[in-house]
């Protein structure tokens, strides 16, 4: 694989359909959820189901980002989920680095999530991760995008920026299990820039998926 090659989007199995934003809106409407709440419902679903038995809690902290301050006048970012980076050295022995893996959900259409997206929120995430304890220890922090399938891949600019900072970029998409209609499952989180790990002779960690099936 070349450093910035694009992984195919992955559903848990071939009978599933990649979930587009318009289909998500349709499912929400059928369940009596207004469009103004589709975002929070998708985010909750993605975070709670991605890692079966190990739901990711909603983040309630701000992370400083001087770069976003310069670009957009916003001095922080709030990822949707934040977990520690766990680096396994040998069986039964690992190092843990706090706040070094961010999860960000996006139910969007027609975007690849470039660094400038949402007033430089994506750049802010990368900036904050590059200041994390994992980065300080010369390990690889990571950002995991949980998206609808409209995000065919993550912007090459975002991947390049992340790679420059030694940050792994992972991508999981939502899929629909049919029948019954409206049952969803997050696909496996795929690594988009393996170079950040291979260059240091590291084995990338698994960041979740396929998730538990469920409904928004």
């Amino acid at each position: 694989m070349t450093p910035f090659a694009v992984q195919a989007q992955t559903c848990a199995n071939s009978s599933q359909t990649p979930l587009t934003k318009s289909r998500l809106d349709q499912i929400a409407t059928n369940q009596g959820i207004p469009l103004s709440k589709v975002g929070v419902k998708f985010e909750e679903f993605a975070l709670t189901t991605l890692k079966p038995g190990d739901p990711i809690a909603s983040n309630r902290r701000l992370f400083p980002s001087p770069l976003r301050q310069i670009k957009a006048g916003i001095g922080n970012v709030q990822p949707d989920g934040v977990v520690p980076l766990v680096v396994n050295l040998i069986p039964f022995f690992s190092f843990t680095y706090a706040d070094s893996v961010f999860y960000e959900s996006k139910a969007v259409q027609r975007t690849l999530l470039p660094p400038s997206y949402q007033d430089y929120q994506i750049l802010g995430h990368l900036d904050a991760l590059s200041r994390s304890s994992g980065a300080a220890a010369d390990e690889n922090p990571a950002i995991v995008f949980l998206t609808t399938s409209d995000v065919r891949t993550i912007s090459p600019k975002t991947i390049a920026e992340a790679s420059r900072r030694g940050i792994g970029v992972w991508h999981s998409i939502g899929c629909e299990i049919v029948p019954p209609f409206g049952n969803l499952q997050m696909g496996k989180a795929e690594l988009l820039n393996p170079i950040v790990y291979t260059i240091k002779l590291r084995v990338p960690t698994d960041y979740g998926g396929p998730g538990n099936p469920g409904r928004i």
Partner: protein
Amino acid sequence: MSIYFVREEGIPLEQRRGLETIDRNLVFVLVQASVEQVSQAFSTLRQMNVWVRNAYECEIEIQNESTFVFQLRGHSWSLIYKLHRSSIRIYLTEEDARNLSESLSTYVIYYAGSDTCGTIDYHLYSNGILQEKLSFEEEFKCEFQSQLRQLEVRSIENAYTFTRNFIREQDAYIPCIVEVEELLAGQHTTLCIEDLMLNEVERMDYLGQQ
């Protein structure tokens, strides 16, 4: 209570205006009226048959359709916030805002920002009549209409900044509330938002349906 009031350090809460964040999914209705008036009107509008006045830091029983109506100290707007991590079938809509504006003969703002969907929407009503509206979806659409000012939508360079400025110009503030865990109907708890001090709250009422 596993609900958090997230804010950047620095400016005291009573002086904060505009948007606290664009990085979360938030829906609020802001009403230029007292908490008492707003709670009364919203209870009537949405058939809320449980109303606990001055409930902040008091023991309450969680009901269906949990709703906070509150005013921050130093602020003139009352805010309506519906908990989404609890049993709900009723969602805040722009129609609620219009109805409240009409019934209370006042200004009402409907605000819905979604970091997940890359959208931001606001509607300003006065006496039930739409005064201004912005509907933005990043890299997809930006619609704007106003009775208050002559402005072409193409002159809006950054919808986030534009909305932030609009909210600030109304002397209003959209806080950031994060719900971490689900609240179950029947559960007894102290109504309290973490990191929001009692002395920062002018009044908070709790509404629900039994």
